[in-house]
């Protein structure tokens, strides 16, 4: 009798465990989910949720009247301000004009920094002589905040466009040049030797091996560089500017127009983010092989 019970119990047990096993199998295994490379996984949903929650908290604080609008204006007032400035302009210039002027300054300086910084960085990587000459000045000015040498720029180059573009240029130049310089080290000695064993000249090795293999680092340096450019924009437009997003933010702050300040910040962030997306896209197109060999 007890044997029978036992048997029945065992049968039921194995049926249950089979069911559990089957259920467990329903879900596809995801290799590396637990013991994979730390940090892998998709984050878009979480990022969107974070943004939504931040907006919600912001809206709540203002809607409940915890903080005066002078300090933290409500999200909707920012949107309204944006539409208003878009239609009416700010200090006599339309918003798109401010954006265009600033973009020209930043991208102009960025382009200039790339055109000069990338070849110079490559040359620094290739030649101890050039590295020896240019390393001290670049390393000297690189850690100095642009605001510190802004007065010098103005004394030397006046209050026109030159000093503004130059200030942004300097902030982009150092990271781009240093990125290109360290990119020279990316080529494997085997790749270089392979080229030489086909009778390549030094110039051919630079053109066909060093430069292409430095591309990932150069593109990364460009991304970092343009980031510095946007950071420096407001400083560059502090003095004697009458147009530009940075100028808009600064002059709005003087009149305690907090919504315009925040709106300007969001616009700068938006443009910088869009450009970063563009750079990432370029990266995928230009160096699809990055990290694969």
């Amino acid at each position, binding site marked *: 009798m007890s044997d029978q019970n036992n048997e029945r119990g065992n049968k039921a047990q194995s049926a249950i465990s089979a069911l559990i096993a089957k259920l467990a199998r329903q879900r596809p295994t995801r290799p590396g989910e637990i013991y994979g490379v730390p940090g892998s996984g998709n984050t878009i949903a979480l990022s969107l949720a974070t943004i939504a929650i931040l907006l919600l908290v912001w809206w709540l604080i203002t809607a409940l009247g915890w903080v005066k609008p002078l300090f933290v204006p409500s999200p909707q007032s920012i949107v309204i301000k944006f539409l208003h400035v878009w239609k009416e302009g700010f200090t006599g210039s339309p918003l798109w004009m401010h954006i265009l002027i600033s973009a020209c300054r930043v991208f102009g300086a960025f382009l200039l920094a790339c055109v000069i910084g990338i070849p110079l960085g490559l040359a620094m990587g290739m030649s101890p002589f050039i590295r020896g000459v240019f390393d001290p000045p670049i390393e000297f000015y690189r850690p100095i905040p642009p605001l510190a040498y802004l007065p010098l720029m103005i004394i030397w180059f006046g209050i026109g466009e030159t000093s503004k573009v130059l200030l942004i240029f300097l902030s982009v130049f150092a990271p781009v040049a240093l990125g290109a310089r360290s990119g020279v080290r990316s080529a*494997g000695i*085997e*790749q270089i*030797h*392979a*080229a*030489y*064993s*086909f*009778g*390549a000249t030094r110039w*051919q090795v630079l053109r*066909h*091996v060093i430069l*292409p*293999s430095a*591309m990932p680092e150069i593109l990364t340096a460009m991304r970092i560089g343009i980031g510095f450019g946007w950071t420096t924009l407001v400083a560059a437009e502090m003095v004697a500017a009458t147009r530009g997003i940075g100028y808009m933010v600064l002059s709005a702050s003087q009149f305690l127009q907090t919504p315009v300040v925040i709106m300007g910040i969001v616009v700068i962030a938006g443009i910088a983010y869009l450009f970063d997306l563009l750079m990432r896209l370029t990266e995928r197109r230009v*160096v*699809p*092989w990055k990290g*694969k*060999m």
Partner: protein
Amino acid sequence: MRLNIENATVIYPGVEGGLPTEALQQINLTMDDRDFVVAIGASGCGKSTLLNLIAGFLAPSEGRIMLDGAVVEGPGADRSVVFQKHALLPWLDVRDNIEFGLMLQGHEKKDRNKVADRFIKLLGLSGFEDSPVYALSGGMQQRVGIARALTCDPKLLLMDEPLGALDALTRETAQELILHLWHDTGKSIFFITHSVEEALFMGTRLIVMSPRPGRITHEFNLPFSKQFLDGISARTVKASPEFIKIREEILAIVFSDVEGV
């Protein structure tokens, strides 16, 4: 083709104030047409240094390297190198990688295509011409590397552990492929490996090297690659008593160097 290495010595400067090391000491080696010379030895015995010397990447501290009566003074297209790995250019597809040497030498695209087509076919890479090299398996990547080295019609092919990064099965297939290529193209090959079995199977001559200082301690003439090319299967050749006997003999030599460390 005649390669003469005469009393070549290579001394590396000491690292951080250490004593200079003698990577190669008084190496003498001659290679003729259709020679397949395999170098083997414990790590640090100077095999790669010797290959770099022949390739021209290094200059000997003493002695000289002669190729067809002229002193080797640097790398040149008459000596192509096949590396263990990382030597392909990932931004070029298979065809452009194979044509790389010809491109550097300034050949027209049309001529390059013609030569590359031949080696793409010869190495079984047809259908993969437009693939990015990083998408290929290790074995195929190595075939691209070999094809690239052959396009410039070198007198001497230098292979620096070309099969070292392959899995055992692919490796055996690749060995047979290289032997057939060697036989069909009539090139001379200098080949470095860590595998005694591979060394015995592939070479017509085997040099065994010892470290500190790097030097050639033994030389053997080998019949096995000829047996294979005469039609005996690779496994039969490698399992023959004669093969096993010499394999153990060489393993004993190499191990005695390792134990000395």
